[in-house]
């Protein structure tokens, strides 16, 4: 059994073959059960991008289940260009102090030292994110080596299972961040959920070839075939800007939503944040979604994701 640098968690095979709860060393800190368990607690909720402690308070007051601390929201990263990196520790610490809800922060893909810094700061969840400029063209960080849980983006099932194989405790769609256009999040969620349904139908003898074609670990393919879902929580992200967008993603079948630029790039952030939180809880109640959608003011301006040149499509980042 492989042991990671902090003496906790192991490989995905141990955890997937043996139910995680069988691993019950006394008072085990930072185990896979508590990492994926925090993601379970976020379900049915909204995670909001914030750039300072004031926005973090607005998000918490609106009922966000967590905040994502970052220096620039994706819409500004797009506008500014250049290399996007982990945020300043001072800024992250100010947000850790300002809120009682979990605080997430982003590391670049493959930049495990940025992730080590975030863990050292006491960040509750790391987003290894395609929104920042990738630091490695081939490899993602080894997420088993951390007691801080990770969330990673995906566009399809193979990508989701590779990230879980690397130790991610939570998955989200990539969508197309900073556009305010929900179409890519819809596409990615439908792709993942459709591929799960397809795996469920396959006879067991075809699963190895399915694993080869997906580029996914066989054990996880087997698990998904048997259970009909991802082994971790699955959120939508990338382009969600309105209460109806959030309810749409929930009805399609995700466990919760991230809203990045959509809130603090809009006319009335506090009201829009509150409305998106309510629409996520009451996603199957159109009367409530209608009520909270009234008089929200300007939504973020938005860019149609189909008009983005390939070099500006963030969803293409990650391997």
């Amino acid at each position, binding site marked *: 059994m492989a042991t990671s640098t902090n003496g906790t968690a192991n490989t995905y095979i141990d955890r997937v073959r043996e139910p995680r709860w069988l691993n019950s060393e006394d008072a085990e800190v930072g185990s896979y059960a508590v990492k994926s368990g925090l993601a379970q607690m976020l379900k049915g909720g909204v995670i909001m991008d914030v750039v300072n402690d004031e926005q973090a308070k607005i998000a918490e007051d609106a009922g966000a*289940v967590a905040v994502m601390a970052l220096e620039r929201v994706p819409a500004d990263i797009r506008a500014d260009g250049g290399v996007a990196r982990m945020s300043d520790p001072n800024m992250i610490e100010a947000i850790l102090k300002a809120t009682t809800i979990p605080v997430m922060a982003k590391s670049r893909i493959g930049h495990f030292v940025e992730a080590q810094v975030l863990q050292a700061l006491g960040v509750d969840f790391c987003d290894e994110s395609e929104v920042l400029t990738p630091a490695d063209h081939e490899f993602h960080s080894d997420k088993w080596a951390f*007691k801080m849980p990770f969330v990673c983006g995906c566009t399809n099932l193979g990508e989701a299972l590779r990230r879980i194989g690397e130790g991610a405790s939570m998955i989200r769609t990539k969508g197309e961040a900073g556009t305010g256009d929900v179409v890519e999040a819809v596409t990615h969620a439908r792709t993942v959920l459709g591929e799960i349904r397809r795996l469920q139908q396959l006879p067991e003898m075809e699963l190895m070839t399915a694993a080869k074609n997906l580029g996914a670990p066989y054990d996880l393919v087997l698990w998904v075939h048997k259970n009909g879902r991802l082994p971790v929580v699955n959120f939508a992200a990338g382009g969600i800007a309105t209460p109806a967008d959030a309810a749409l993603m929930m009805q399609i079948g995700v466990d919760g939503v991230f809203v990045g630029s959509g809130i603090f790039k809009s006319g009335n952030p506090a009201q829009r944040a509150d409305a998106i939180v309510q629409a996520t809880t009451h996603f199957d109640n159109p009367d409530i979604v209608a009520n909270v959608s009234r008089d929200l003011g300007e939504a973020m301006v938005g860019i149609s994701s189909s008009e983005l040149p390939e070099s500006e499509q963030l969803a293409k980042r990650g391997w």
Partner: protein
Amino acid sequence: MPLNIGVLALQGDFQEHRAVLEKLGAHVTEVRLPHQLEGLDGLVIPGGESTSIVKLANRYDFPDALRRFVDEGGAVWGTCAGMIVMASKLVEPELEPFSLMDITVSRNSFGRQVDSFETDIPMDGIEGGPVHAVFIRAPSVQEQGEGVECIAKLDDGTPVAVRSGKLMATAFHPELTPDTRVHELFLRLTAGELSPA
């Protein structure tokens, strides 16, 4: 007749509770609005983010409806965030709980996520060995009012599960393990099969 159990489905891991309760033969409904409490024998308030649950609940006048539900003899069990919202008082002042049970609770009592842990603890009313308890940014009970009984504590004496009449609260998450004994205990409590604490 199966027991009618609601799970408060504003936010959190309510589906995990639902799955266990259904496996044990209860009739389970998801509760998102106060009128859905009608006809229920018991209610589970799941783990989640206590600030989100409280804010969503206040929006639709849940606190009064929940206090009425308890007054009329309904059973309530809160896990983690559920324990926080059931409390009469919180050590941290920024959130006002629903005051269903006479306990003072400290939120995030064990630190941030990197300090979350699992451990085995014995629990009163549960036979067959200790319960495997998962603590995630967990609260703990700081003070108990009269008639509130501590039914599980950590090695250092910190109370992490309490009971009072038909009310129960645990700082940990039995719904995240395959052990169904704590859910069975709550169903017995709801059915009135346990002597008053």
